[in-house]
């Protein structure tokens, strides 16, 4: 039983740390991705600021979520195909949720990225900024 909890703890810490690294690396390097998708200089410049961003990864959420998934995974003794599919989905959902949360709460120079996107997105989409920039 003790070994079971130890496994879950190690699993949760390892996952949280991996997610933490992945999310931060991805957010800090979003600018080229955004530019390749949108070809918009303004958005690329905005996302370029994320190099120096304060990124708040929801560590508590990651720990709880990965520990819960750890319980489900380590309770099974037989490693079936469904087990791997389940593990993959868990990892993806955990990453996606952490990424979205982190992005939402990412702050650059005391300003939330989500606020900047909320301001700029409708303006860029409607073309209203074309005559201004």
């Amino acid at each position, binding site marked *: 039983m003790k070994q079971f909890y130890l496994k879950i703890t190690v699993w949760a810490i390892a996952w949280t740390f991996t997610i933490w690294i992945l999310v931060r690396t991805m957010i800090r390097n979003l600018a080229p991705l955004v530019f390749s998708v949108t070809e918009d200089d303004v958005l690329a410049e905005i996302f370029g600021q994320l190099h*120096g961003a304060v990124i708040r990864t929801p560590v508590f959420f990651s720990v709880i979520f990965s520990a819960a998934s750890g319980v489900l995974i380590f309770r099974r003794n037989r490693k079936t195909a469904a087990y791997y599919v389940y593990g993959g989905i868990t990892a993806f959902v955990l990453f996606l949720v952490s990424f979205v949360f982190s992005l939402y709460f990412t702050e650059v120079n005391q300003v939330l990225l989500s606020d900047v996107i909320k301001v700029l997105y409708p*303006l860029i989409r409607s073309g209203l900024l074309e005559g201004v920039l």
Partner: protein
Amino acid sequence: MRRGVLCHIHNTIVIFILVISIVSIISFPGCRKVNGPFRQSGSHWTCGFDAREIVPDNFETGTYYIAGYGVGKEATGILDPQFVRAVWLDDNSGRGGVVMVSVDCIGLARSDLENIRADLMVFAAETGCRSVNIFSTHTHAGIDTLGIWGPVLRSGKDEDFMNKLRSETVSAVLAAYDARTDGELYAGSAIIEDILNDSRDPQIFSRDLYRIRFVPFDGSCGLQMIHFGAHPEALRSENTLVSADFPCYLGRRIKDLSGDEFIYFNGAIGGLINTRRLTDENGQELDVYASTVRTGELLADAALGITDEEFLEPSLNIRSITFNTPLENPVFLIEKFLGILSTEVVRGKGTYNRMVVTEVSYAEIGNLKAVFVPGELFPELAYRTPDSFIGAAPDNEGPLIFGEIIGDDDFLVFGLANDEIGYIVPPGDFYLHDTLPYIENGRDITGRRHYEETNSVGSRVAYDLAEALEEIMKEIASE
């Protein structure tokens, strides 16, 4: 017995922690130190002055942007160098001196100013300096110090220039203190006709040019502190040369004709007070350079012609307060995000849950009352607006005007003091563009253009500023 001793030790520790906590809270930099009553006086004035050039050493090879009009306008040369000027003023009441610095620039954000104050902390501790106040002349021909006049999405601020500005300001303050001498202070004013222009109704602005003159007992050269409310933009938008604009020529003439040193402070210049393009004796418009020089010289002549001077009692009283106001301007928000603007913000109320942190001060120099305002104040907020004027948002009841708060109609507004947060617009005339608020100029039903709103933090600033000033005045009244 042993339990009693332990209990006593425990209580002592709790009391000790409580005392330490209270002392820490009181001595936190955000709290104001109050040394006795607000109004105190000494036996005589002590004043020191120094001025230093702040043009970058690598100006010829570097790229610098002119601040004030369009973005990305590179400076092509120097018409006259930008200066930082510092005054040390002490009423010898035993409370320590006050530093007043004026920088030839468009404006300084509070964070840059706090860096300078931090550099002066040792100086303040050694000399007993009780207040450091930094003003900007708001020249529209200076190198960008706010960052918003660089190429689109890029800061126009140059780090080396900002570092030089910072170090030269500190040096000027130290030198002003070292150059201090005892003397008397006089104040007088002149009414300036036919120079000022108000581009936005109502036509409310101060036509007074004030001069506070220091006369040393030892007969050495004195100091003329000039206060006048107008945008230094006589060089207009086509100019690409670095200049302090008309205050430079005002100062030069004062020095040439009187031998006195000079420092310039701006007034309530919002909405939008500037100087007219002057004409020659045939009525032909002078070119902008000649007009700028002439404007400065006319103002100098008015200052030198002041005859109604009054002796100012050696009593310098100042009280400051920091306050927060919601950041509603999305352009400022994005500029802040991009690191272009270094305006200080904290979490709080407003559209984006961000508040700009700034400060206001009330001062009395002898019997001269003054409010130090952190931006470009619409004069309507300081003085009365005629009842006949109906603004674009008449339903918005405005805050108390400064005259009502101070309880006196005779006072000076020192603009761009200890921060530059942009225009401070009366709520009753605050009007935004329908689809691009804060980005494009709004036009109200009468066709009036509302440009200043695009360069303002938001619609709440006037209220928050007035409330902060009221708090100072209540505090003073309660002493």
